[in-house]
């Protein structure tokens, strides 16, 4: 898992409209990346629903949250719309898991770890967290502990 104090790596993810989201998109703002294993899986569903509920509290701190998985953009969009959440989704579909690997958040069985990374406006990782297992849902309190430290 990428450590706090480390510069964010170069990476390319896909937005829903098929445009690129890269390291340059992290510049100038605080970013919370939520790496999650699978769209439509039960824990990921609970996780995005919970984080959506505190999204205004993240925005109040100047932070922007993104969901990251290896699902295709179409699947991520369907997941987002099915849940009714607004958290933008970023796809690490091809090359599969390339960004997850760059952040040290790729599970050996071929999907993203359940992990959180906060990157500062200077593109330096401020905080990172990997759940003990993909079945564990990190509380939103952990994100606020890191943002308000």
């Amino acid at each position, binding site marked *: 898992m990428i450590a706090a104090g480390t510069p964010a790596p170069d990476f390319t993810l896909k937005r829903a409209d098929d445009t690129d989201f890269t390291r340059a998109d992290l510049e100038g703002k605080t970013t919370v990346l939520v790496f999650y294993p699978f769209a439509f899986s039960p824990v990921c569903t609970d996780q995005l629903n919970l984080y959506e509920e505190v999204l205004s*509290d993240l*925005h109040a701190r100047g932070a922007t949250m993104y969901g990251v998985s290896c699902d295709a953009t179409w699947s991520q969009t369907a997941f987002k719309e099915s849940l009714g959440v607004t958290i933008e989704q970023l796809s690490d579909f091809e090359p599969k898991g390339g960004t997850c690997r760059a952040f040290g958040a790729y599970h050996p069985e071929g999907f993203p770890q359940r992990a959180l990374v906060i990157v500062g406006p200077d593109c330096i990782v401020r905080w990172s967290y990997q759940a003990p297992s993909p079945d564990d849902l990190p509380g939103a309190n952990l994100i606020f502990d890191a943002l308000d430290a």
Partner: protein
Amino acid sequence: MPDASTPVTELRSAPVPEPGPGDHVRGVHGAPFVVEYADFECPFCAAVHGRLAALAVRTAFRHFPVRSSHPRAWAAACAAEAAGRQGCFWEMHDALFADQGRLDDPHLWSRARTLGLDLDRFEADRRSDEVLDRVRRDFHSGVRAGVVTTPTLFEFSAGSPQRVDPDVFAQRLSPR
């Protein structure tokens, strides 16, 4: 940049608050005490409610509505609080869990009518900032305590609060 118009709520980790006068509490005095974070639109919460109702337990109910999972959860929570302002929190709580398929506004008004509430006051209260803040207070305390889903139970009977599995907890209780 931070949105200066939005107040920043304290959401860093904190222990689950001790039950106090601001909580909704009922049950058998001297029985095991549990604080429940729940959502009126959550079917698992309704199941736990039904199970605990038959057992000797003392319960404090706290709201943990998550609207993208349950679009009417906040409205239902505010309805319960508004009923509580007329002394009928638990009656509304039970009526909401009894029929989770009917949580639209007319269904809430119907419950209020059945409970004999002043409807104008109920309607004003459930939309008030005070009631919304009351629900938020519970939700935020749950977030700070690391609640991630509903129902989440904390037992306060012995020493520091312990998170308990509802099924395991219920098995330890005696019939009411």
